């Protein structure tokens, strides 16, 4: 390990973040302001998630980092290496072996357990921000539980598109009180927000931390006649054949050929290791 303090941040910063996390857990879905630090990576790369992870890590932890479900993208690799170097923690790409998972825009397909912590990177924590730009107003709206505007937005989706067209960062109500942005996860993942693991959300640029304790009631907003639907591309994965995972669409050539693959690379890999084969995969897991 280099001459960094454990997990990069200084102790006073970690205490400040830890106090915010505890208050966030006590008031699920409420955005706790915190004094976000400048991190050695640009905003938008997960500076909020990194700070929450840094304040949460212990030397015994095994860290997994995913970006849109993938372990091997630039963002995930960079953050994993950052903590390997500054915290000396073990890292893994296997969901089941990780004790802390930092994620950008996905919830892993495998059910998380009580021994795991999921840390989200959040770009815009305020679900009402695109409806009301003033922070003073959105604070007031949360305090008064005034969420009519959000329902109007969903209604306008229906009147324009025939159904609720919001497909990611789909707003949820936490424990019948706070409307929360679950970060830009696909709405396919929304039902998984009620899980056994602790969920922590960090927004670095916007300086907010919020949290959802295990088994907390998380309801996706909808209407009686237009109920919430966790949608995904209507295909099986072309590599592992899974019918139940969230898929990325990959353009193969300019003749209109395309393939659909699991966005969760570890889920896809472990299924192929078990012998599942999709339309374009072989048993070795390589695209044919």
């Amino acid at each position: 390990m280099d001459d960094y303090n454990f997990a990069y941040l200084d102790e006073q910063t970690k205490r400040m973040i830890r106090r915010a996390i505890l208050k966030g857990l006590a008031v699920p879905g409420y955005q706790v302001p915190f004094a976000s630090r400048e991190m050695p990576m640009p905003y938008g790369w997960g500076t909020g998630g990194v700070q929450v992870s840094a304040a949460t890590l212990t030397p015994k932890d095994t860290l997994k980092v995913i970006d849109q479900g993938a372990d091997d993208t630039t963002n995930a690799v960079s953050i994993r290496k950052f903590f390997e170097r500054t915290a000396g923690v073990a890292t893994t790409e296997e969901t089941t072996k990780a004790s802390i998972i930092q994620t950008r825009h996905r919830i892993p397909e495998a059910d998380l357990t009580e021994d795991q912590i999921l840390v989200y990177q959040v770009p815009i924590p305020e679900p009402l921000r695109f409806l009301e730009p003033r922070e003073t107003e959105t604070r007031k709206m949360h305090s008064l539980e005034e969420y009519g505007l959000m329902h109007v937005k969903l209604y306008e989706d229906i009147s324009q598109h025939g159904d609720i067209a919001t497909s990611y960062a789909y707003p949820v109500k936490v424990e019948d009180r706070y409307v929360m942005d679950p970060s830009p996860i696909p709405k396919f993942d929304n039902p998984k927000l009620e899980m056994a693991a602790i969920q922590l959300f960090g927004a670095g640029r916007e300086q907010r931390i919020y949290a959802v304790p295990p088994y907390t009631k998380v309801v996706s907003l909808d209407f009686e006649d237009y109920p919430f639907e966790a949608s995904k591309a209507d295909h099986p994965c072309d590599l592992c054949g899974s019918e139940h995972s969230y898929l990325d669409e990959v353009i193969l050539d300019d003749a209109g050929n395309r393939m659909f693959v699991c966005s969760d690379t570890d889920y896809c890999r472990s299924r192929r290791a078990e012998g599942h084969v999709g339309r374009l995969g072989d048993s070795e897991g390589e695209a044919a």
Partner: protein
Amino acid sequence: MSVENNTNSFGGGFASPPIDAAHGFRAAMNAMARPGTIQAITGAVPPAGISAAAGTLLLTLCDPETGVYLAPDADSVALREWLAFHTGAPIVSADAADFALGSWAALMPLDQYRIGTAEYPDRSTTLIVEMADFGTANASLSGPGIKDVATLALPDAAACLAACQGNAMLYPLGVDFFFTSGSELAALPRSTKISAKD
């Protein structure tokens, strides 16, 4: 190393502050995220009369930015010196406290603590309640962090139950509790619904 009777205000701190604080926080977070569960927490050796759990919690969470209120039965010169040396946290009155430490009876009444504001409910006091032990559970808990029903031993049963129920009624405002005994702690956030255990 003297563990039992630490009379030196410079001793009893974390052996390795980043590591001990990380483990201390994990225990505190697990407790707050799962009300009613009892977590092991060690690392600090506070002056006599204060549990290791409470001492570790204070060193994990307090610094010059957090006001600490010491209830009459926890307040001592030794503890003030120990806190000042290890955390630099100012000792403040109950109505200005971020953290308050003492036994349940000494910490009362509950309405002297900050409960946050409608727009910033996080600006509320966290009470660290020292207990003799986690004896027999006398309260049933439900709410965020609890799968079905959890149980917890509250001190001074009836009065404490009523006070905690009143606190939960204030949600999303209210104070949050840690209960500490020896090297164990449990937590009761304001989001938890409490009733007497059958």
